[in-house]
């Protein structure tokens, strides 16, 4: 595909959906953090987390339907970004564990960090791969 074509070809709204997904887990995190140390109904945070995870899945599915997507570049960038964001998620998780967070809130926070550590690398890898050639050798 020509360079000009790469800039203009239509793509699913991966960035917008990804940002919505991140906003949902951030909202869930704020909801939980705002009530500490009191116990708080987990249902709103679980709903926000579930919606966020659904958007992550929807984003992946929408990408699989893109013709000639540069998956080689997506995985090349994504695996390193995943490593980096897994480390930052681990540090944040460590801060929560150090303060004795446990039970339901710990599970919700941990799963939220998993969505964060998957979705951010995915957004980075998508933004790079959308402008890359479909094949590593430059062919379409």
């Amino acid at each position: 595909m020509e360079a000009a074509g790469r800039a203009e070809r239509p793509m699913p709204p991966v960035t917008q959906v990804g940002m919505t997904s991140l906003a949902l887990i951030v909202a869930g995190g704020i909801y939980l953090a705002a009530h500490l140390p009191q116990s708080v109904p987990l249902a709103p945070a679980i709903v926000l987390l579930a919606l966020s995870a659904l958007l992550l899945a929807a984003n992946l599915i929408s990408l699989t339907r893109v013709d000639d997507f540069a998956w080689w570049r997506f995985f090349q960038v994504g695996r390193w970004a995943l490593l980096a964001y897994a480390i930052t998620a681990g540090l944040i998780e460590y801060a929560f564990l150090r303060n004795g967070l446990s039970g339901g809130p710990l599970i919700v926070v941990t799963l939220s960090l998993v969505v964060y550590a998957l979705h951010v690398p995915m957004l980075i890898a998508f933004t790079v791969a959308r402008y890359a050639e479909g094949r590593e050798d430059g062919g379409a």
Partner: protein
Amino acid sequence: MATTVEPPAPGGPAAAPPPGAIAIPDFEIVPRLGLIPVAIVFAGLVVAIAVNELWPLQFFHVAFGAAWTIIDLFLGFVLGPILGRLAVPARIEMTTRLMPKMVLIMPTVVTATLAGGWQLGHLLGTVDSGYYHHGWIVASYIVVGCMAVIALGLLEPANIAVLFELKKPQPNPAIIERLMKRFIYTAGILGALQIATLVIMTKIASG
């Protein structure tokens, strides 16, 4: 190996760079040497959280938080507008020197600020819902949350994607222009949100 980019012009890509093509200096997308200070900062952060004492936690939260605020304000309101007005060769030169460093600096600064701040809040009791400035604390969560979504969803991917584009044998000026615009605009929005952070944090620190 240095690559070249043509200034925006009609027509398809040429087989060889024309005489007017702009040379792109060689650069590393992630500077490997920079990973050493990042590892040192993260190791120090783990130790600070483990020992749970005021000074190291205060250091991580205040020093790295100040760096985060200043970098965002400087990028958003000083460097970003200048970058947008530079000639294409100067912009490419600046981008290839600045952006790889930002790939390492920003996630490190943000993680140290937030993890150190959360632990500090526990130590001081400021994250408890009974704290008398609890409303301001929640406001800070919301501002940081907005900044995180914009930075992680828009700014960081644009930062890395522009570096990958500049690494290509024939970079596309339209793609670089689009990604740089995204970077500069989001840096401006983050700068504006950092003003809100300054208001909230100085209010909390003033009691």
